[in-house]
């Protein structure tokens, strides 16, 4: 009963207030048009108003489960009004039955109740509309506050992840190593040094303008990965090789910006750098059912490689996947028979179609 409306103290106060006003109004009217004596009139007005206010509580659920009126739809208002009509019908039936059962009432009083029942129902309907509006306001206040809180939490998470992602995208060791290589090349191979500076600036431009929630088409990501691998190739020479096997139909696949970067960095750091033999980094993208499977794999030196815990890079990927797709398990890591592989399964979605679609 967590969202039972009467748990809300403020609402309860308003509701009781409205009930007292209704009772008082009814009392005054009855006092004017009848001569039943004030005790009878008081009991009558209290009971009528009480029964109204009890059955109209049900309207809350109509508002609640039709999602309030947060979206502009007259049907939802209509739903509440029709529901109020049904409730009133039930009320009228209930009163008629009651008057038949209560034989202790004088015949004149019973006749009066029956005659005035329709007028009472009409007045009740006016109250139903009032109560409905009250429910509507409370619904908005209560749920929009919750929604706001949720949104703030999400924003906070996004910001923190963005910051983390930025830190991870710009692996300081990578930049440092690249600058070292450039420094060496300026003396021994100035042409190469110049080329590498350009590549590095391309890479940085791409990496720096992105944020954690942003998506990019696979082909843009591929360009960037190639820049990265080319830069590392200057350091490692023939030792670093790479092959791409991309389903051409998936070049527009939408994926979180730079999500693959830590996978390639790991392949370089744990595969290429730790091995004395040339290592090939293989990247494949294929469709498997409703998913696109992206896989980065490389051989590693089983005799010397030591795996400890998963690095911060992989953790960051999982966090982003959780944030964007609500599932961090879309990344799977495997190391067996001298091959290390990291696979990412993402829902099939074309980046360019997304842009044209009015849904977004």
């Amino acid at each position, binding site marked *: 009963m967590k969202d039972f409306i009467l748990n809300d103290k403020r609402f309860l106060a308003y509701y009781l207030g409205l009930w007292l006003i209704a009772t008082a109004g009814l009392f005054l009217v009855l006092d004017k048009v009848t001569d039943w004596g004030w005790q009878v009139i008081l009991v009558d007005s209290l009971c009528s108003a009480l029964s109204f206010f009890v059955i109209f509580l049900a309207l809350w659920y109509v508002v609640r489960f039709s999602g309030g009126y947060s979206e502009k739809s007259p049907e939802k208002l209509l739903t509440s009004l029709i529901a109020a009509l049904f409730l009133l019908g039930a009320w009228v039936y209930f009163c008629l039955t009651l008057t038949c059962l209560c034989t202790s009432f004088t015949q004149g009083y019973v006749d009066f109740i029956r005659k005035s029942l329709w007028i009472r129902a009409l007045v009740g309907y006016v109250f139903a509309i009032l109560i409905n509006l009250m429910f509507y306001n409370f619904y908005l206040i209560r749920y929009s506050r919750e929604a706001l809180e949720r949104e703030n939490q999400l924003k906070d998470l996004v910001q923190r992840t963005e910051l983390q992602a930025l830190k991870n995208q710009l692996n300081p060791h990578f930049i440092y190593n690249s600058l070292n290589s450039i420094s060496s090349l300026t*003396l021994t191979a100035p042409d190469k040094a110049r080329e590498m500076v350009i590549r590095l600036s391309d890479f940085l431009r791409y990496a720096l303008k992105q944020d954690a929630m942003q998506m990019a088409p696979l082909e843009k990501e591929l360009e960037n990965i190639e820049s990265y691998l080319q830069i590392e190739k200057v350091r490692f020479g023939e030792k670093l090789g790479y092959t791409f096997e991309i389903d051409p139909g998936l070049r527009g696949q939408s994926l979180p910006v730079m999500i693959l970067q830590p996978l390639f960095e790991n392949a370089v750091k744990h595969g290429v*750098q*730790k091995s004395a033999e040339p290592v090939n980094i293989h990247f494949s993208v294929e469709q498997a059912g409703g998913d696109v499977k992206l896989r980065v794999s490389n051989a590693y030196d089983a005799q*010397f490689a*030591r795996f400890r815990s998963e690095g911060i890079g992989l953790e960051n990927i999982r966090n982003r996947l959780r944030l964007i797709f609500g599932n961090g398990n879309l990344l799977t890591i495997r190391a067996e028979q001298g091959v290390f592989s990291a696979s990412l399964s993402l829902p099939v979605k074309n980046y360019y179609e997304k842009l044209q679609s009015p849904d977004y």
Partner: protein
Amino acid sequence: MKSYKALIIEDEQPARDLLKEFLKEFEQIELAGEYGDGFEGLKAINRLKPELIFLDIQMPRIDGFEMLELVDEENLPLVIFTTAYDQYALKAFEYNALDYLLKPVMAGRFRVAVQKALQSLDAGNGKREELSKALNNRMEEGAFLDRIVLRSGEGIQVIAEEDIYCLEAQDDYVLIATCGEEFLKKKTLKYFEDHLDPAFFVRVHRSYIVRLDAIQKIEPYSKDAYLAILKNGRKVAVSKSGYGSLRERLSF
């Protein structure tokens, strides 16, 4: 003028090229070879016996420190370390006269280091002692050994840290026992006490270090002495103070 043989052991081509370029101005130094990883470097040192090496620390297969540990003592050359990250340059160099170059290497800094090395070599000082001291102090900030590399015949053997059951001091060597095998490494037990993660290893005796989760049971042996029986049946002596630290660690 005396001439000396030098090697470059460094895994990155641009850095190698740069060192070669800088070396050209030193006629007394003959570059006898360049190697891309610690294992190749080790073989070359034992074969070519250079007087001077330029050694990168982070390298494939075995790193610069691990490589030096495996070089025969009489073949130990004078070493100029090159490293990109200053955390490696920490302790190993702090109290020693050894030289290291931080990448990117500047021509002026390189010249100074090589001239100093040449002076030492001319004076017949190979600085072997300093080097051994440095090797015993190797420690990356907050990182413990995750493997031990040793020579086995012509090749090298790698023991993963988690495979080690216990270590025993034996004169100049330390015997490293895994579940079913034993290895000897020329080191002190103190070195391993300092460099193995104390979360897993405890010094239980003047001559023993034991891996905590390798212990099956501990029984009294004599007054103030105990015996730890390991999961592979091996028995390890535990002293009174060793028993105290075991009690503390295993909370019994």
